[in-house]
């Protein structure tokens, strides 16, 4: 969700510290687990328990676990649990319910996207496997969550042992030939990242939610298949989380184009996927303007996984709608069309 929010940066910067929104009622039955990473960050995991195999579900940038769990009928966690899967939704450090460390101090900055893949995910995976006693889990990531999955799969040695499947949904890895809007957003990220410890995106999202009946251009970037204005307002209020300066700086390095790389520029994560053999499902949305199909497809093409599949969610490929970025996780047809594809892949 980085790109559409960056043009609103001046508005967003008007904000100040903001607590995560209260959990919605449909999450009351979910368990909360607190996990510490090896480098000392605190993470919240939200579990929708069931007896089946565990699935770790990860959100994207400037988001939190509600991007996969907005309401009872728009929740991969609830849906998978009803299908018998033990669903665990993660809030990466600084997002959602992971905004404070173990001592109660704010976790606001000081990390990069690399840290999500190399610190947060290993800690979450270890916790889930330890609690459930399972030998492996399936990983599902949306947008940056899928990119974080690539970092984990390509650079953490235990990933090949611990993951039974990797699912990347709307996750761009190829930033070559930058488009004007993306290029401008990345340029802004490059300028802002080193200067700002955190960007309070939720303040801007709240304001946008208040004008739910009057969509702004940013809406065209985010969704194409969420008809109910109340759902859209809830999406803005509940999902949007602060951006950290470190992740903005890392994305800002892509302003000249190229593949998604590590913060130090030394690792080309797209290229590194060629060494990944974990069974892989990649899903792209035809109307996704955050992660257009041509920026997601290389994830599938480059991965070394002997067993891999690519799904293009659009009307021309038999879906009910041309899926936008958030439609893939919480859109009007996600539960009917996207969730079963994910289930079938991790069950295969």
């Amino acid at each position: 969700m980085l790109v559409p929010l960056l043009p609103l940066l001046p508005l967003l910067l008007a904000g100040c510290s903001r607590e995560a929104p209260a959990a919605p009622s449909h999450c009351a039955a979910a368990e909360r687990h607190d996990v510490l990473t090896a480098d000392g960050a605190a993470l919240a995991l939200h579990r929708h328990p069931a007896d089946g195999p565990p699935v770790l579900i990860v959100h994207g940038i400037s988001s939190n676990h509600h991007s996969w769990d907005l309401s009872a009928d728009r929740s991969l966690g609830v849906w998978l649990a009803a299908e018998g899967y033990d669903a665990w939704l993660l809030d990466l450090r600084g997002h959602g319910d992971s905004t404070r460390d173990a001592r109660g101090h704010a976790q606001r900055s000081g990390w990069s996207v690399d840290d999500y893949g190399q610190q947060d995910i290993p800690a979450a995976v270890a916790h889930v496997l330890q609690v459930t006693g399972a030998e492996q889990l399936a990983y599902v990531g949306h947008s940056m969550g899928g990119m974080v999955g690539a970092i984990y799969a390509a650079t953490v040695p235990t990933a090949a042992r611990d993951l039974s499947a990797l699912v990347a949904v709307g996750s761009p890895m190829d930033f070559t030939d930058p488009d004007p809007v993306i290029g401008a957003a990345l340029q802004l990220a490059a300028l802002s990242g080193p200067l700002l410890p955190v960007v309070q995106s939720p303040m801007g999202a709240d304001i946008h939610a208040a004008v739910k009946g009057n969509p702004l251009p940013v809406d065209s970037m985010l969704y194409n298949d969420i008809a109910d204005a109340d759902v859209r307002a809830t999406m803005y209020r509940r999902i949007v989380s602060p951006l950290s300066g470190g992740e903005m700086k890392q994305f800002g390095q892509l302003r000249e184009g190229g593949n998604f790389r590590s913060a130090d520029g030394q690792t080309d994560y797209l290229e590194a996927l060629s060494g990944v053999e974990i069974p892989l499902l990649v899903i792209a949305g035809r109307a996704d303007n955050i992660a257009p199909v041509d920026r997601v497809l290389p994830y599938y093409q480059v991965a070394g996984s002997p067993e891999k599949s690519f799904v293009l969610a659009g009307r021309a490929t038999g879906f009910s709608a041309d899926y936008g970025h958030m439609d893939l996780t919480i859109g009007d047809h996600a539960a009917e069309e996207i969730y079963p594809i994910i289930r079938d892949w991790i069950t295969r």
Partner: protein
Amino acid sequence: MFALTCIALANAAALRDAGEVVDGSPVLVVVTPGIAASAYGRWIAAIESRGMDAWVFEADPASRSDEVAAALAGAARSLAADRGTVRVAAHGWGGVYALMAGVDAERLALVGVPLGPQAVAGPLSGQRWPWETGLIGVMPPAKAPSGTLDAYRAWVSEFPLYDPPSAPTLLVASNMDVVAPPEVVRLPSAGWPQRTWERTGFLSLDSVDLSHADLLSDPGLARRVAKFLEEGE
């Protein structure tokens, strides 16, 4: 709108001088077999408004797919012999024919032209085009050469061989174009020596993502095609 000027071709394909300009740099406008030449009116007007001379190529309705490409190659050679090096403007499958023909062009503008098979074929329509009109948009039809509609259907999953053009080439695609979405334009052309890539739509601050048919009728895009072709003069 077409002038009477014609260049005789060895087969029944038609190459006609369109518009008013008669002495500018020749631009070969490749009409996609199955689409009426009238659909290219905006392109022709935009090209001629910049002082270039638009020539329209239309395939013989009795031709097979490979014959269309051969006729187009012949038309380009004839036009070049008569008027000098040509520039090419093509939309959709017409651009595929231009690539198959290996037209020796000074510049090419390829708009909504697929450069490879679809990433996911999906279910194809049983109607005229591989996809339903609701997805592809409305384009004025013309009698289609035998086999070309079948070729369009086949190209969804198996693409003809061609050599990447060495001349400066403008490639325009839209996220909502089912015929030539960006993944079958930008990615296959990554190694082209002189390509200019442009994605229309929200990501370029446009107000809408254009359909395949919209790419041919959009006035702004017609001007963009003409401007690109004029550059280098």
